[in-house]
């Protein structure tokens, strides 16, 4: 039932600067989170990744797919 949201990490190269999918999603499904946090150090923007955290809320409206400038997001309706 749950839609399958996939983010191609190879295409999504600047998650921290872009964040278009986060802002456009009507259900606020996405999150951009650092993959590591170090003491005394700000995380490198390259160490961020977009995650579809609240994917059970997704309505497959496909705004994220349209908004993604690199075509890294794919959404498939769940069977």
């Amino acid at each position, binding site marked *: 039932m749950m839609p399958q949201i996939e983010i191609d990490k190879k295409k999504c190269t600047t998650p921290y600067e872009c964040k278009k999918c986060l802002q456009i999603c009507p259900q*606020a499904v996405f999150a951009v*989170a*650092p993959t590591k946090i170090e003491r*005394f150090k700000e995380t490198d923007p390259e160490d961020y990744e977009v995650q579809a*955290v609240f994917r059970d809320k997704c309505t497959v409206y496909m705004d994220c797919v349209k908004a993604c400038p690199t075509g890294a997001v794919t959404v498939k309706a769940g069977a």
Partner: protein
Amino acid sequence: MQKTAEIAQPIARIDCIYRRTIRATLEDGEQRPRSCLGLGVGMFRWEEWPERYKSGVEFLSTGEAKKHIDHWHKRGMVITIMSFGTPYIRGICLCDYPDCVAIRMRIDYDVKPYLFKGHEVAKVDYDECIGCGSCAQRCQFGAIKMEVTVKKSNIDMTRCFGCGVCAYACLQNAINLLDREKLPALTEEW
């Protein structure tokens, strides 16, 4: 909340990590407010975790903190207390849906420990209510509906978190905040 601001020292204004993660706003300035308040001496060591406290911290006096809380409460933010290993109080959060993960976890997934209800419960005075609906727009918990036939707003007290945002929004002062402990059915409802 005002009392918390009186007791706690130091108070530092920081940006909300959830808001930054979920809705991508790195808060600065009036448009993207640096909204949350961090409490306690730990705030002096914020530079150890620059990632967590991105955009820095701004230390506030008690008066400034109270004004800050008031300002955002009036504009519709839910004011919550963040504990980091209860009873240690770590911060005062300003939350709204869907940015706030605590609110989402509680109302979307019913994970209780993320957010408990407040000590008060809102109730509409039907004689005063004119049915303008400004309270219903504000509720972050989906507890307020408009009763179409009687043209009044209806607050589901079992769903109410007692944040008081609706009472602030009501121009008629028709919403009263009652003591949860005085309502037998809701006393244990957190």
